[in-house]
């Protein structure tokens, strides 16, 4: 239903402003054109207003009857109302265009980001991505919806006013064009400096409030360390360094007003001077003088607005650049074409080496796995044991093809993970992570991951198998009850995660057992559920508790990415000299 993201359409070359605009504004050409026509119309009306007043003055001078004067006045009011109506309609069109375009961009960007590798996600903080998908796209939305209309509108208005002044007298037009250009040049310079100063100010402000909020959060630590005086000194220090920056920023900010004030003064002085002297030497009539004064007064407001909008344009284009850069990222995992066989999947690691890509992309990668080989027959259970950093989770990541091995092969049911279709692979491999991610949504949506093609009967069957039926019946709205991360115990969350996985009928389950303790009742439920649902599936469990390991047919003890021991669980436990038996006595590696 969503359009393919511009980057994924296979179009050559970088994602630029132009491609983004074409992708998202192209389909709405008609609306964009309507918007432009309305805008031009409203500006023509605005420029005609002083002409009507001039007509009125002329009629007064000619001694026209009062009825005619009233007619002219009503015409003036009519034009003013029509102008506002046009503006509102234009705004509606531009808002529609903008939200349609940016909603599509937001969805495409999300789909694109979801398609990128885990190594990409691990190098970015979620906050950063939210800022791109939400913050930057919003800025672009703002730009399309109000800025474009106002930017173009004000630019056209200024041109129209200058044109009207030129029609009255070319010398006046030329003078005002010069004032406008000079005003813009100076304004641009001053605003450029002011922006820099404001950025300094924002930085100081962020540092100041960052520190304040930190110290408030750390009250317990500061009080018990007798360091509240230190925190106050920090506060004073930050305030002290902020003061001069703030004053400089305010002063430069006010310089923008000063320039506007000067432009206004120059415009008024020229209008009064030209009007006065040209009237006195007979070049201009009294209505003509009125037009000059009226247009001169109209000139300042769009100039200031235009300056702000140009600034907005720069911000939006920085946002567009960042969005483009995000679209330009490509996934490195290439999808395969083979489907995994049905039924329980055998697993084979064949001299697998792996290193996580470094965030910066430089420096030697530390090998997490090095020449790892092992086999898990279809339908059997394997326990993985080893201390943190031994490579257990990495094995899970390779099995669900979050990453590809650096060397060697991972085979699932005899198919190399690189040659398997990702869709097929991920539907056949169920991975239950330690921390279960719950969405702020209903229980049903949390179970199906928003897939509304899954029928309730299947959900109920799974919940039955997990002994969760009594719990479900206790929920106020059954499957439609909203659940959230905070509302469930970790045991319940674990059971829901199992339900999610079994819903997909996987041939291999990778279970990263939570290291925190579940309450005994829940633990027993999990055990029973596994017994019932594991039939005909392969299980690889990253185990932290002795009980769990005992249920495994075979155990592999990992250290530093290598197998240091493997064998049948019972044999290893019985062999007092085995590493596994020793570990289960000392116990430290199980944590």
């Amino acid at each position: 239903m969503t359009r393919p993201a511009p980057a994924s359409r296979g179009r050559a070359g970088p994602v630029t402003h132009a491609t983004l605009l074409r992708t998202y504004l192209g389909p709405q050409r008609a609306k964009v054109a309507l918007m432009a026509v309305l805008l031009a119309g409203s500006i023509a009306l605005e420029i005609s207003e002083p002409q009507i007043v001039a007509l009125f003055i002329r009629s007064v001078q000619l001694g026209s009857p009062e009825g005619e004067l009233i007619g002219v006045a009503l015409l003036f009011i009519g034009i003013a109302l029509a102008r506002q109506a046009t503006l509102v309609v234009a705004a509606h069109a531009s808002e529609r265009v903008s939200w349609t375009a940016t909603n599509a961009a937001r969805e495409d960007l999300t789909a694109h980001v979801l398609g990128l590798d885990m190594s990409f996600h691990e190098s970015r903080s979620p906050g950063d991505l939210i800022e791109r998908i939400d913050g930057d796209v919003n800025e672009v939305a703002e730009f399309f919806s109000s800025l474009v209309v106002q930017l173009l509108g004000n630019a056209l208005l200024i041109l129209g006013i200058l044109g009207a002044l030129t029609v009255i007298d070319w010398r006046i037009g030329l003078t005002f064009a010069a004032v406008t250009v000079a005003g813009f040049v100076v304004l641009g310079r001053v605003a450029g400096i002011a922006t820099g100063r404001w950025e300094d100010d924002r930085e100081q402000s962020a540092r100041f409030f960052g520190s304040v909020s930190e110290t408030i959060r750390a009250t317990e630590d500061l009080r018990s360390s007798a360091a509240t005086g230190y925190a106050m000194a920090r506060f004073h220090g930050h305030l002290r360094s902020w003061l001069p920056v703030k004053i400089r920023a305010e002063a430069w900010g006010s310089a923008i007003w000063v320039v506007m004030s000067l432009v206004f003064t120059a415009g008024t002085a020229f209008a009064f001077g030209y009007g006065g002297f040209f009237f006195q030497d007979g070049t201009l009539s009294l209505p003509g003088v009125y037009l000059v004064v009226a247009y001169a007064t109209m000139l300042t407001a769009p100039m200031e607005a235009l300056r702000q909008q140009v600034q907005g344009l720069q911000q939006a284009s920085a946002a567009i650049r960042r969005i483009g850069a995000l679209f330009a990222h490509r996934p490195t995992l290439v999808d395969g074409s083979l489907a995994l066989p049905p039924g329980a999947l055998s697993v084979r690691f064949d001299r697998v080496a792996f290193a996580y890509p470094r965030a910066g992309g430089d420096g030697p990668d530390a090998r997490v796995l090095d020449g790892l080989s092992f086999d898990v027959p279809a339908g059997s259970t394997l326990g993985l044991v080893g201390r943190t950093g031994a490579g257990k989770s990495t094995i899970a990541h390779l099995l669900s093809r979050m990453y590809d091995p650096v060397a060697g092969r991972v085979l699932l049911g005899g198919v190399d993970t690189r040659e398997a279709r990702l869709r097929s692979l991920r539907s056949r491999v169920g991975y239950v992570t330690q921390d279960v991610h719950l969405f702020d949504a209903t229980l049903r949506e949390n179970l199906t991951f928003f897939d509304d093609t899954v029928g309730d009967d299947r959900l109920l069957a799974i919940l039955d198998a997990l002994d969760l039926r009594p719990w479900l019946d206790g929920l106020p709205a059954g499957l439609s009850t909203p659940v959230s991360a905070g509302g469930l115990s970790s045991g319940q969350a674990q059971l829901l995660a199992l339900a999610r996985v079994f819903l997909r009928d996987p041939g291999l389950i990778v279970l990263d057992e939570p290291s925190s303790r579940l309450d005994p009742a829940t633990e027993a439920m999990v055990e029973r559920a596994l017994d019932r649902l594991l039939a005909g599936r392969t299980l690889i469990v990253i185990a932290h508790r002795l009980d769990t390991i005992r249920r495994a047919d075979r155990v592999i003890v990992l250290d530093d990415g290598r197998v240091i021991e493997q064998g049948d669980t019972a044999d290893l436990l019985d062999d007092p000299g085995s590493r596994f038996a020793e570990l289960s006595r000392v116990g430290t590696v199980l944590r």
Partner: protein
Amino acid sequence: MTDPAAPAPTAAVLRRLVAYSPWRFLAAAVGWTLFHLWPLLPGVLGKLLFDVLEGRAAPGLTVTTVVAVVVAGGLARCGAIVGATVAWAGWYLRARGLVQRNLLDRIFRRPGAQAMPTSVGESVSTVRDDSDAIAMLGGWSFDTLSGLVFLVGGLAILLSVDAQVTVTVMVPLAVVVLGAQLVRNRAYRVRERSREATAKVTGAIAEIVVAVRAIKVADRQDEVVARLAAVNRVRGDAMVQDRVQSLALDSVFTSTASLGAGLTLLAAAGRMRSGQFTVGDFVLFSTYLMQVAGYTGFLGYLVRTYQQAGVSLARAAVLLQGAPPLSLVDHHPLHLRSAPPAAAPAAAPDEPLRGLEVRHLTHVFAGSGGGVRDVSLTLRPGTVTVVTGEVGSGKTTLLRSVLGLYDRQSGEIRRNGRVVDAPGDVLRPPLAAYTPQGPTLLSGSIRDNVLLGLPDDGRAEVAAHRAVLGPDLARLDAGLDTQIGVRGVRLSGGQVQRVAAARMFARDPELLVIDDLSSALDVETEQELWRGIFALSTTCLAVSHRPAVLERADQIVLLKHGRVLAAGTLRELLDTEPEMRLLYGRAATEEGVTVPCRPHE
């Protein structure tokens, strides 16, 4: 006695804030008032120009004079803008800084772990945003004054030109503007809807981004994007409606200039024909009418600023917790030119610790009823006392109540036989130092966090070593000087806990108080840390359930449901308390120790 959380009277707050830096305030007030009154000038000058041209002006006035006044007025305005802005910035930051300083000071005086009257987030927002709203009162005062002068002055000028036209134009215009203002106030419902829809979209995106791995593993990319699309559509519709509605309302205000000019033409048609109303008069009217739109917005701003200040003062009063409301604006130095003088080093204890007795200590949480009740224990110098018990048995609450980080509700604490009235101000360095379970560090170097203002005389290195930070520091590029926090390295939970332990050791206290270290430390590191603590032979009160620690403790205090179930050595407790056997057994299995019923000697 008035209600302790009653907000300070706005006028009194304003007076004391102004008095904090009166000359800056005066300069800003004069500058801004001139700035606001200036728009009266162009209208009068425009009328003057046309009067000159039509030969109605006073003799001696020429086009040149009018232009000269225009230029002089414009230049004067520029001066007023710069002067007023700089003076205002200086005053504003001082006034706001003063409010913030007083709020922080108050926050730091309260028992450190006590739930604030508001959430931490709200307290931060009060210090950040409410201080701004309160300081803005200064600007509000002269804005209001000059706004009134402008309004009265403008109306007086218009009335003096032509009372009849003024009334005919202004009354309908005022009705339209007021009506639009009323509708605008109601329009917030649509605004609320679009805000909710926006929050939904932001929430959906945040969820997706945080759950990338889960979504990929489950292969549900398309489904979650479809869900985003659904909330996106709702938001898009709400936003379009919201924006168009507010734009339509705004257009009523922006069209007042044109409408007013049109009404003037209508009202003056007859009088202009007879020469009672001149072109100059029309220019004056239309120029002033251009200000009407701006000023209705301005009046709205004034009302909002004042209301906002009232709300903010109320919020600040809550945070002041019983201090006189006006202490919010008490004058204190802000040390804006140079650093404040260093605080005097804390006095060494008058006599070494001979014993700390806790008698019938009670702190119960109002909502849950959890906490500790009637806890008594005695710490002898040089011994290690370990508090243990199930999750939720009150271990952390006990430590915090002893240290005065919670208000105790009853009971007493005696040091060397003498009652400690305010443990929060006494049982802190150098008498006692504390490692909380979830410490909060500040942005800065690890060294800064260990020292927190103590002299850097090599103690940071010693303390870091004691806290078993050595191997971690060796891996960091800059060792102790590594920057942590927002702009620096992110430490793991275990590292944070050990930096806090180093902070405790650096204070060289006579009593170490340590909350459970096991949640974030691996067993080996924790054991090394404990070996160091036992070797120090400093008096120590700690929470732990590690068998190795329990075995070496001089005294174990076993808590259950907030009460002391029993106290004694591990052997004694294992013999007498089934609960102890249960806890010890479970802890031992968890560590994989083949479970003995009692510790092997």
